[in-house]
């Protein structure tokens, strides 16, 4: 005799057999899933529940002592199981939507009137339901996504992506009662180790031996590799074995851990991608019973017997199995989600909001820092910007382009934390409008500054040098005498420096080149160049560059900086010192030349800037080495250090 319990159902106390109450619960659950995407789901469910309660009470009034399994089954078939409803719905075409076969399938995933959106699954989650949500959205099996996610966790970024999706995506109950999609399972009937290979084979409809060979290939490769090692580079076999083989092992074990076993008839059908309905389940069950002989080749006798038993059991009660299928998959997912992962979930959520908070906070701090820096140490800006308009544009860019989004984000965070829902749409419009203005001023500023560099002018002057003693010239850069007098705007940068009197600017944008002299004398050529809006301006700016050098017997002294007038602004003033060495003579470039901070800005029309710190042709020599000029250019004249490979 079945145990009878009292349940409170829709406001009435109902005496019901325990097994019948289980049926009831599963039935409601399956309806809930069936109507998951229906707009008035809760209402429909509660209507149906009221009706069930009414039918219960009618039966009890008639003199029944309690609700039995029999009663429950009658009631369920009166109202209809999800499969029946599905069939009836396509048959009698409830509602205004036309129900072509295609739309039916779509209805399973999304409400046809609603656009497809990405959600987290609230009912099929191991951690946050992100994988199930994505799988639903992309229409692929959740297990595949779980595997991809586990791998991307190793790559590092996956963790962040997961947490962000977790925090951002809204939660929604997914329709796990899905009869069409093929799912990945492990196949317990055909397993050698974990049933992964045969499950995959069933999923992709290929022969299982192909997958077994793939999974075994690392071991095969190991033996083959060892014997072929003599022919091939060892690195190659190592690479194949470690990289490819290793990841195959990992894949196998990850799949083993992630994939559920196909235990019920319905799951076995899903594994092969056959549509799950009563007919096909009946077919499979019959097949299992009748074709045992045929299948015996594949299945061990034991497994076959088990399947037959299972089939028998299923056939007696297979309707119920099918009806509860939705729940079974669901509970299977729940089973694996333990209390531990819940705790992990809460921790991770705190972590995500923490990260977003820190991110916004640091953006804000960065913005504040940038603003104060520009307000206090703004010489550098004065140095780049040439007129009032550009200054206005800079501030507009700063406030509207950077500041507005930062403030917006901050407001969003405050809202999110305090849970405020109401939102004035005009605030959004205003922010967007201001931000668009910010974009405009950003591009305007960009193109204004770009126009400073429109034309380029080069002016060169040649000085003849006295032939040094030993026919060897040493090139050095002298330290600047009044280094204290100048302020470093940003240490270690190519940015020019300014003296404390703030009347002139020092820049180290200098490079040294060595070329062959056309005659038998040493020369030094100083090429001063500058850009400007017009060629005339560029010319004037190049002329204004002050650069000094002098020769002291065999030493050529170069200044560390050239100076410009402050009002000349930054127009990519450069100095190139070309030392011309006659054939056969020697030259040595001192390490101090490294103090120069050469940089170049290439302007691609319309595409912006490209800052380069090194010139392509400038470094075919090393410092502190004696080179001799030959017809092919410089060659090392150091006898002691011959090995070219020993670079510093």
């Amino acid at each position: 005799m079945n145990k009878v319990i009292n349940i409170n159902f829709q406001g009435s106390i109902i005496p019901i057999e325990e097994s019948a109450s289980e049926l009831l619960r599963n039935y409601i659950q399956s309806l809930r899933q069936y109507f998951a995407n229906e707009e008035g789901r809760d209402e429909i469910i509660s209507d149906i529940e009221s009706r069930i309660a009414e039918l219960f009470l009618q039966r009890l009034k008639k003199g029944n002592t309690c609700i039995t399994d029999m009663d429950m089954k009658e009631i369920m078939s009166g109202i209809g199981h999800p499969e029946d409803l599905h069939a009836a719905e396509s048959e009698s075409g409830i509602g205004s939507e036309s129900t072509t076969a295609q739309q039916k399938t779509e209805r399973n995933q999304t409400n046809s009137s609603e656009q497809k959106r990405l959600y987290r699954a609230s009912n099929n989650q191991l951690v946050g339901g992100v994988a199930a949500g994505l799988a639903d959205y992309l229409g692929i099996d959740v297990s595949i996504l779980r595997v991809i996610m586990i791998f991307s966790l190793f790559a590092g970024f996956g963790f962040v992506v997961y947490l962000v999706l977790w925090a951002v995506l809204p939660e929604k109950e997914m329709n796990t009662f899905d009869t069409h999609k093929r799912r990945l399972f492990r196949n317990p009937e055909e397993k050698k180790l974990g049933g992964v290979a045969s499950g995959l084979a069933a999923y992709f409809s290929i022969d299982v031996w192909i997958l077994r060979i793939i999974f075994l290939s690392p071991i095969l490769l190991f033996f083959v590799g060892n014997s072929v090692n003599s022919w091939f580079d060892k690195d190659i076999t190592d690479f194949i074995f470690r990289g490819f083989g290793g990841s195959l092992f990992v894949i196998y074990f990850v799949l083993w851990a992630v994939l559920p076993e196909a235990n019920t008839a319905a799951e076995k059908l899903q594994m092969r991608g056959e549509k799950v309905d009563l007919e096909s389940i009946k077919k499979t069950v019959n097949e299992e019973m009748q074709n045992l002989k045929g299948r015996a080749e594949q299945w061990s006798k034991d497994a076959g017997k088990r399947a037959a038993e299972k089939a028998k059991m299923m056939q007696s009660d297979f309707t119920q199995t099918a009806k509860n299928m939705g729940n079974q998959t669901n509970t299977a997912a729940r089973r694996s989600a333990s209390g531990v992962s819940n705790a992990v979930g809460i921790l991770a959520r705190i972590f995500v909001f923490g990260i977003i908070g820190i991110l916004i906070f640091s953006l804000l701090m960065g913005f504040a820092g940038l603003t104060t820096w520009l307000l206090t140490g703004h010489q550098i800006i004065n140095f780049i910007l040439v007129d009032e308009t550009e200054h206005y544009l800079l501030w507009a860019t700063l406030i509207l382009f950077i500041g507005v989004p930062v403030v917006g984000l901050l407001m969003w965070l405050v809202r999110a934390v305090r849970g405020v829902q109401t939102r004035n749409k005009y605030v959004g419009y205003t922010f967007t409008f201001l931000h668009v203005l910010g974009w405009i001023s950003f591009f305007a500023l960009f193109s204004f500054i770009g126009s400073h560099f429109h034309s380029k002018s080069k002016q060169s002057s040649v000085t003849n040098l006295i032939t040094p003693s030993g026919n060897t010239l040493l090139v050095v850069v002298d330290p600047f005498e009044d280094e204290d007098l100048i302020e470093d705007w940003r240490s270690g940068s190519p940015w020019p420096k300014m003296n404390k009197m703030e009347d002139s600017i020092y820049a180290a944008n200098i490079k040294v080149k060595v070329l062959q002299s056309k005659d038998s004398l040493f020369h030094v050529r100083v090429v001063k160049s500058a850009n400007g809006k017009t060629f005339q301006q560029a010319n004037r700016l190049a002329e204004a560059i002050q650069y000094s050098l002098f020769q002291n017997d065999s030493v050529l002294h170069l200044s560390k900086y050239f100076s410009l007038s402050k009002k000349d602004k930054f127009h990519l003033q450069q100095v190139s010192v070309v030392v011309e060495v006659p054939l056969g003579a020697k030259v040595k470039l001192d390490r101090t030349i490294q103090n120069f901070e050469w940089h170049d800005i290439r302007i691609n029309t319309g595409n912006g800037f490209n800052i380069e710190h090194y010139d392509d042709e400038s470094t075919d020599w090393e410092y502190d080495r004696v080179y001799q000029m030959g017809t092919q250019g410089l060659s090392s004249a150091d006898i002691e250090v011959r090995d070219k490979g020993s670079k510093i």
Partner: protein
Amino acid sequence: MNIDNTQSQMRKGILEFCILSIIKRSESYPSDIIEEMRRANFQILEGTLYPLLTRLKNAEMLNYRWVESNSGPPRKYFSLTEKGLAFYAELESTWEELTSAVGILTQFKP
């Protein structure tokens, strides 16, 4: 051609019309609707009726009010709204056109 499919296509088009006409005649409770349709030999599952009623209600074709019941939880009694009446009138005229057309065509003798 599948006869079941054709039949279901035919039923599909008129189900809403039938339900609305039952409700139009008198305020009805879902079980009444099922019962009435059963008597007319038009069988449907209760489980398909509830979502249909909810959709029609959400589309403002139907209204309902709660009525206390002595045999269980309170019941929802549905009635037509103005919009529902207009919708029904349109369906009705379409139905009449169809039946007369079908009548002429099927009885047509050359």
